[in-house]
């Protein structure tokens, strides 16, 4: 069980009109064995934060602390140290897997990234991993293009779990999936998190999906976290106007019949002009 703490993390890019601050002093605490949801709209900086945490994007400021020890650095060695403990699953099932590698090759590569396994142990490991995420072991010798989107996303999750990380970052892992597939991937990730005692940062723009898997939800807006609260408290009593705007915008199945406004008018919405991504203050 490992706790991940982000301390004043800042990420800046060189945009076409000068530097852009994608993540602006974000502090977030992911206690051991819990899931923290990070919700925000496009351009809010949540994916930049995910990439920074796993070392794919350099930090412009702040620290990432794993069990009380600061991690990070630009060397391959530092990245390997981080990769052994923190893994990530990305959004797009189309590019998540190397199109030239079978499921088995992909998983073996991940399983042997930090330890040596003989041929037999490797094969057992692959079978065990596929079983863990509920995939048919016969899929092991397929190429990614022979799998459905949901299956590919499960393989991507399996690859991340193959190194037995302590912390899993899930970056929009269901946004490219159909609703019924999303449900089964959500079920799987929630079960795995509990079963393996993972600490998880679950990033998404779909508030119901994020709330479904998370114990605590943080709301991100324009590079900053505007509110963090336990899921039930956030849903019951949102404090920040932006959180309220998000909550009222979520379409709900049991809405009143059309013709009349679906919900009370939204005083908070006009205050949110469209996000010009480059001009973050």
């Amino acid at each position: 069980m490992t706790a991940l703490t982000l301390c004043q993390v800042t990420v800046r890019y060189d945009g076409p009109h000068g530097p852009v601050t994608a993540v602006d002093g974000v502090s977030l605490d992911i206690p051991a064995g819990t899931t923290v949801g990070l919700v925000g709209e496009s351009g809010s900086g949540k994916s930049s934060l995910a990439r920074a945490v796993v070392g794919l994007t350099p930090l412009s400021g702040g620290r990432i602390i794993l069990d009380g020890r600061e991690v990070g650095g630009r060397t391959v060695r530092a990245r390997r140290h981080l990769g052994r403990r923190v893994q990530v699953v990305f959004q797009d099932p189309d590019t998540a897997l190397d199109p030239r590698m079978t499921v088995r090759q992909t998983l073996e590569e991940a399983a042997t990234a930090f330890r040596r396994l003989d041929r037999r142990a490797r094969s057992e490991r692959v079978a065990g991993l596929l079983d863990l995420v509920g995939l048919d072991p016969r899929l092991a010798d397929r190429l990614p293009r022979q799998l459905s989107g949901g299956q590919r996303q499960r393989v991507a999750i399996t690859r991340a779990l193959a190194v037995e990380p302590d912390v899993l970052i899930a970056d929009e892992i269901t946004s490219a999936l159909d609703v019924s597939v999303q449900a089964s991937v959500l079920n799987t990730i929630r079960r795995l998190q509990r079963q393996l005692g993972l600490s998880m940062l679950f990033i998404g723009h779909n508030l119901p999906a994020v709330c479904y898997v998370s114990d605590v939800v943080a709301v991100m807006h324009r590079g900053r976290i505007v509110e963090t609260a336990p899921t039930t408290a956030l849903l019951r009593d949102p404090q920040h106007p932006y959180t309220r705007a998000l909550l009222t915008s979520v379409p709900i199945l049991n809405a009143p019949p059309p013709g009349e406004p679906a919900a009370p008018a939204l005083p908070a919405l006009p205050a949110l002009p469209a996000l010009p991504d480059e001009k973050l203050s």
Partner: protein
Amino acid sequence: MSVPTRSRRSLPSSPLAWVAATMLASLVLLALAGPLVWGAAADRPDPSAVLQGPSAAHPFGTDNLGRDLLARVLTAARPSLLLALSATLLGAAGGVVLGASTAVVGPRTRRWLATLINLLLAFPALLVALFLAVVLGAGAGGALFALAVASVPGFARLAQTLAAGVSGTDYLAAARVLGLRRHRLLRRHVLPNIAEPLLLSTTMAAGTALVALAGLSFLGLGVQPPAYDWGQLLNQGLDRVYAQPLPALAPGLAILYAALTFQLLGEVLAGSAARRAHAPQSPPTAPLPATLPAPLPVPDGPAGDDHVLQDHVLQVEDLTIELPTPAGVIRPVRGVSLSLRAGEIVGLVGESGSGKSLTALALAGLLPEHARVGRRTHRLLGADLTAMTRKERHHHLATGLAVIFQNPASALNPSLRIATQLTEAIRTHRGASRTEAAAQAEAALRRVALPPSLLRSRPHQLSGGQRQRVMIASGLMVRPALIIADEPTTALDVTVQRQITELLSDVRRDTSAAVLFISHDVALVAGLCERVLVMYAGTVVESLPADRLATATRHPYTRALVESVPDLTADRDRPLRTVEGGPPDPLAPAAGCPFQPRCPHRRHRCAEDVPALTDLDPGHRVACWYPLPAPAKATAS
């Protein structure tokens, strides 16, 4: 590369492929056997037959020492081809490593490498080759090295461009997070994924290198006597080309033949690569049906659907779409019927591959050319579109309906001002004058709550939500009776989505246009629409009032779909409902109900007969032999 399409790969499939393969085989054979068979004859001087023209004993004549030129041309195949191939491979290897490593190094090194490649590209390759050949001294080795170095920048640029495509992918990012070392990233993830196009251009480059090497030898910079290659022979033959053309022509023809072989080979490889890229991306399929499945029975509509419905804006009966794919003809839409009254907003819900977007495109006459559309009725505003000529239909569709697409960024032309895009349609179809059109465009922008000053902007200056508003304004310009909105909010944020759906509702209320709202989001459709059609595998499986979606669905698929959507009140300790299995293979549709293999309530009959869409009560139709029981409270309202 263990791609399981070996059977298609191993045999050349087209006449061109056979020609290329035969030519390549002849070259290989010549390079292997040439020196063994003709080597002795090529080196045997014959003082009695110096500088002879073609004769029976020497078909191409002899050279200044009386050696047989035919034998020399044939023997020279090996050195010529070997030199060309080595130069190409050496250059390709250097270039590819240089270019592909840009994908795995840090940002600073990447910038340096890119600058280096740009710098190298600034020098013309042939000039570099000549310069180096001179500097290194005349000789085969020098020429080979010079040519290899000269071809490095071209390969490096190609590899760099291809590798840039890989470096943005999630799998490379994931491999980095796994802590793989750079050479391993390069070897396992980057190189295999750019190998195919590189192989093609290497093949083509071999032909060019052959000509270039012959050129260097011809200029006296390449192979030196007594060794010889085709370029050398050409050089020697040229002295007497006016007296006897054949001794000069023969090595020239050999060069041409070999260069042509490599070019053809490249073409064939490129062709087969393109075909593989178009192969279906779906799971491996069952054997293809030899013939098309028999047409589906036409769903029995309720009485009254077959004649013209006067107050209906849109009326489509039994819409079927066939699309040819490399693997066979598929029917992604099979027998869809729908109708919309003026001012009605109807949702069309389905998952990817259900055929909902193709249905929309067919309604708007926007299907790709090769698609085949069948329908019994297709009326827009009462006019029968099936009876019209192509031009009439185009005009009627352009003035009667508007389509709003998912991605406003690609639906707007980036180089045109908003004003031009808004006024285009009415100036073409309604013959409006410039000032009239401008006034209407301003009104339309106000309608969608955008300032008229935006007319002078270009699309890239607007946010995603603003662009979608412009799309709606553009649709409103023709005062359409029907708005087809195909996932109009899927690319937008949830707060912006809310604004756009409210705008659509307002537009419908004020202009009494009918709206067909296509979406994968059940909850969104339930809140926005009056009626909802649920599509699965190209058919409408349920048609019901939107307020029944939450609790009173009757088709097992619809119910499972609705229950799989997490909402904010979902119990976090209970797993979400899922639908096991996947949608049916469009290439091999099974008999019976399309949902049957995944249906928890299936019975014997479901696998045999296709259920038609039948009325349960007015306003609620379902295509299921055994509809789920309705909850008691749901029949009210």
